[in-house]
């Protein structure tokens, strides 16, 4: 299912193209504000998201300000840029990166409270590249297609853009305000379902860190403190880690001004996602370049003792090799030395395959083929990313070289990446070609490209609850939306072994062959429910008109059908 629709309505700026309803009971996604079944994309007439905020919407249309935001349950990334010092470190729509534990403590632009109400943040057109940030945050009832919406807004800073955590025990909501390049905030307010109504006052802000501080949500510890990491992009990617008391809301600084000595400046060393070593220990990493070598720092968060420790990892390479045998540090020509609002980021991505953790240092630049990008990435070694296997248990500070991947040319370089399956070993990676590549990890050979989807310029990419990939682009002079399911079966083919049978009073056993294919025509294993529509035929194994079947990626799957009388039937895939 490639191009889904082209939004020609006022150049697309009165609407948000894709908004997934965070209420799982609704199983709904709004396309151009109209409700659709999120699994089948069947239109739900008379179900329209109707709390639009006219002309301050972020566009999906024409220039560097336009990001075509999408609100999706399994994360979004910003995938496009056209200059070295555009705003692209602000990441107002990057919910995936804002969460250090995207599976357990996700960050979203929308949020469903425990009581069922829904927050929505609608970001203004000039939001992501301007100090004059526009945004409005709504709260609606459980069904956002009816009733009233309360809103509050602030023209400058503190509108919640990323909802992080509802502390139900203390009736408190936590969010980030990530609108401006110079400053980000953590916000919090009490009574999540009633304390956010038609008021122009700003939510209480507890933490900020000026000069290009990017905020990341870490999660809560065993005592209920919320933890936040700020990375100051402007110089050495210095980390500050704070925790907020769940009831007094007092702030404690746990880590201050942390970065490896003599690291190369302005690389934007973002924290990796974290993993849980055990019930009380969470671990994450950062990567920096010191004397041309990659230095990896491990952070160990003891959530029972509420402490963090850090140290440098040991890295083992084959023979006498070092990092520079495989890759070189990228350079940072075109840097914005004030706010660090640059188009690149250096983020280690941590994932697990068959019980082993791997750490890949993704090099992403939204402006690799513009501005000074050609200098930043002017060698194959700079354009090489390296993956390490991570030691198990407390040896997770021991990294071993696993594999590397060289991006052939500048336009191959990723602009960003986002997981497209729950395990996290499959990624959607927009690049500067422009286009999209779908990647998977092979434990023998490393990352590989499985399929490509070119000739589009993605501006925002998101993943819905079914792991369908949504891409918002500018094409045909308008804002367009693509829906792609690289690993999810979209095309079920059911073929009877004969088109007609002669019934002469005795039951007939017939056979149907079923296969499932992705958009790239790859046969895949998946589970589906079949239903016989018509009379006098049932599935042999169930004796009813429905049967669940699991297809195969390598062979036809067959089901037997018992025809018990004359008639006409068809077989549908219903789920």
């Amino acid at each position, binding site marked *: 299912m490639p191009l889904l629709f082209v939004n020609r309505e006022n150049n697309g700026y009165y609407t948000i193209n894709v908004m997934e309803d965070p209420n799982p009971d609704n199983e709904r996604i709004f396309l151009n504000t109209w409700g659709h079944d999120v699994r089948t994309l069947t239109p739900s007439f008379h179900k329209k998201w109707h709390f639009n905020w006219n002309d301050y919407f972020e566009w999906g249309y024409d220039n560097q300000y336009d990001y075509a935001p999408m609100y999706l349950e399994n994360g979004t990334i910003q995938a496009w840029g056209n200059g070295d010092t555009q705003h692209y470190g602000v990441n107002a729509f990057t919910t995936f990166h804002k969460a250090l534990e995207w599976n357990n403590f996700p960050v979203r632009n929308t949020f469903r409270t425990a009581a069922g109400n829904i927050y929505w943040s609608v970001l203004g057109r000039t939001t992501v590249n301007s100090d004059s940030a526009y945004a409005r945050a709504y709260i609606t009832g459980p069904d956002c297609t009816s009733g009233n919406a309360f809103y509050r807004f602030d023209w400058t800073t503190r509108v919640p853009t990323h909802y992080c955590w509802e502390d139900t025990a203390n009736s408190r909501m936590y969010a980030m305000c990530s609108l401006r390049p110079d400053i980000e905030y953590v916000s919090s307010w009490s009574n999540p*379902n009633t304390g956010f109504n038609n008021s122009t006052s700003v939510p209480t*802000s507890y933490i900020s860190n000026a000069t290009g501080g990017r905020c990341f949500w870490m999660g809560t510890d065993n005592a209920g403190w919320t933890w936040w990491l700020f990375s100051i992009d402007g110089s050495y990617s210095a980390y500050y880690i704070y925790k907020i008391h769940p009831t*007094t809301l007092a702030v*404690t600084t746990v880590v201050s001004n942390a970065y490896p000595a003599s690291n190369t400046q302005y690389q934007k060393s973002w924290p990796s996602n974290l993993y849980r070593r055990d019930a009380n220990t969470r671990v994450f990493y950062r990567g920096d370049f010191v004397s041309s070598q990659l230095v990896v720092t491990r952070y160990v968060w003891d959530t029972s003792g509420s402490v*963090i420790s850090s140290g440098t990892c040991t890295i083992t390479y084959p023979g006498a090799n070092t990092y520079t045998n495989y890759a070189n540090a990228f350079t940072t020509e075109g840097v914005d030395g004030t706010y660090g609002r640059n188009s690149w980021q250096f983020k280690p991505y941590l994932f697990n395959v068959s019980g082993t953790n791997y750490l890949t240092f993704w090099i992403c630049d939204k402006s690799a083929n513009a501005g000074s990008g050609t200098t930043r990435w002017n060698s194959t070694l700079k354009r090489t990313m390296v993956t390490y296997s991570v030691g198990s248990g407390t040896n997770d500070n021991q990294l071993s070289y696993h594999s590397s991947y060289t991006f052939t040319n500048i336009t191959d370089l990723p602009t960003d990446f986002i997981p497209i399956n729950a395990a996290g070993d499959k990624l959607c990676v927009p690049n500067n070609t422009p286009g999209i590549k779908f990647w998977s990890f092979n434990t023998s050979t490393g990352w590989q490209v499985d399929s490509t989807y070119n000739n589009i310029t993605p501006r925002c990419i998101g993943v819905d609850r079914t792991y369908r990939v949504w891409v918002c682009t500018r094409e045909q002079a308008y804002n367009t939306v693509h829906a792609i399911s690289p690993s999810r079966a979209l095309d079920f083919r059911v073929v009877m072994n004969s088109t007609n049978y002669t019934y002469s009073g005795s039951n007939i056993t017939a056979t149907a062959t079923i296969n499932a294919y992705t958009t790239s025509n790859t046969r895949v294993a998946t589970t589906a429910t079949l239903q016989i529509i018509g009379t006098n035929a049932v599935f042999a194994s169930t004796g009813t008109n429905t049967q669940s079947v699991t297809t195969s990626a390598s062979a036809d799957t067959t089901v037997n059908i018992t025809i018990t009388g004359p008639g006409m039937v068809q077989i549908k895939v219903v789920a």
Partner: protein
Amino acid sequence: MFTTSFNGGVFEAKIGDRIVVHQPFKPTSTGAQIAWTDEADALAWWDETKASFTPPPEPEPTPAP
């Protein structure tokens, strides 16, 4: 604007009666939680920190549902 206290080795900064900073140890770049040497040690840190600390506004009144 802020008032500070140092009791039992714990430094706190308040706005009115509200505790806005609770700092029982000296923050470090490694995460090592080093005890304050004394109140002067904590106040020296606070003097460096407070300029970049965003003082939270008063908590909002809880509106009627």
